[in-house]
């Protein structure tokens, strides 16, 4: 799956370039993110600004990244479009995964 990935300071900024993060791309998203994290990305900013829809498989992939980073690393999420934000609220994941209103705030939190 196409992910725009770059390093800003010590942070891996990953921006999935899909409108739908669903079952058809979830496995490939998991695989690509695993490779990026294995290559040293332990502080990860997931920028979801392109994503308009996340299904259960896509959500599972995001939470598995959060759980995998665990205590050793850190995840921040930004760029939530309104349907995605609604899903995060419904599943309370906005209480678990650190969600920031914009990229600057997320980067600042990961740097701190």
């Amino acid at each position, binding site marked *: 799956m196409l992910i725009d990935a770059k390093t800003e300071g010590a942070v891996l900024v990953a921006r999935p370039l899909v409108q739908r993060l669903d079952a058809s791309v979830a496995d490939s998203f998991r695989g690509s993110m695993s490779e990026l994290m294995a290559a040293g990305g332990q502080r990860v900013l997931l920028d979801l600004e392109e994503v308009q829809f996340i299904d259960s498989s896509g959500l599972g992939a995001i*939470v598995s990244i959060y759980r995998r980073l665990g205590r050793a690393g850190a995840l921040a999420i930004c760029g939530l479009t309104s349907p995605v934000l609604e899903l995060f609220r419904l599943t309370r994941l906005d209480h678990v995964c650190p969600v920031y209103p914009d990229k600057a705030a997320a980067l600042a939190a990961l740097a701190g």
Partner: protein
Amino acid sequence: MKILVADDSNDVRVILSKLLQKWGHDVVTVDNGEAAWQVLRSQPISFALSDWMMPGLDGLELCRRIRAADFPHYVYVILLTARDDKSDLIAGMEAGADDFLTKPFNRDELRARIRAAERVLDLERTLEQRNQHLSQINAKLEDAYQRMRNDLEAAARVQASLLPRHATPHPGVRVDWLFCPAAVVAGDTFNYFALDERNLAFYHLDVAGHGVPSAMLSVTLSRVLSADLKAGSPLLKFSPEAPDRPTITPPHEVVLELNRRFLDDDCLLYFTMVYGVMDTHSGVVTLCQAGHPNPFRVSSHGEVETLGGGGFPVGMLPDVEYHSLELRLAPADRLVLYSDGIPDCSGPRDEPFGTERFARFLAELSPLPLHELVVNLQKRLPSWRGNDIYEDDISLLVIEMQ
């Protein structure tokens, strides 16, 4: 290689036979086209050297018959001819000849043309073997696919058998439902059953993903969340002091226990659900919403109230808390549980059906009998979508207070 020689001249047959045998080939000779045709039809010969001009069936007609026949192998034909006119060669090629040898022929040229024929025939044989191999593989795949298809359909029947029966009555309530799986087997499941003479348990759940692994988990869950209320069921609490009088487990504790039992560290097979208990005498409902779409309470006057404020999915995160909420259904009130397949059902230009449209639909149909609601939704969604093939399971469970 076995070679058929067809020529009405005895001299040509003798010379060719001697040469070809000297070069290691088996030779069958005939003196006319009809005899050549009979030999080719009865023996697996892939190479013919035929005279063009023969009485009766000539070389051109022999070529046409060979090309029109459905032999299981290719027949390479060299026409022997005194003609070397361009238009003759074209006529020969159109009839299906592969090559030509001008009489009187030169033996080196004959040998070279036979080698060329062998190369083509070798290639043809290799391709034929590969084709046969592929056909066998194809047949095996077709067979395996058919078996998997049959197994899936058997699994779908098992799943359907676990759903409540429409006729199942429960005093004090009316219940109806709709279920349209996206693949053959589904990740959605739901049920309702009596916990005791007064209390009705109900749930609606949606396992992440589609297909067999999701369906297997949903079948497992429908076994755990069943009317088989013996010790070990998470739905009741059995105390050593009063083993015959278990108490009803509060819904959020049931969900907490499911989260503990079904935690998947890879977050692949988790599920969202609503589990609740309804006191059918008083209409008081206690329910726990876990990552599932917000249920609706629809009054008989068409007022739609969205219930719940979300909750964590089940089996995704360890050590999370769940909460129960309480409400009271007035007579004719409906409690509507559904999976995200309904609001996410995309129609023209990928526009989702949406929660608001679904709520309006429930309001408009509130005066109609409950079964009419289900029948109408079963028509409304395909007409929104343009077909009845869904990307996600569509399911709905409605409980109406009497």
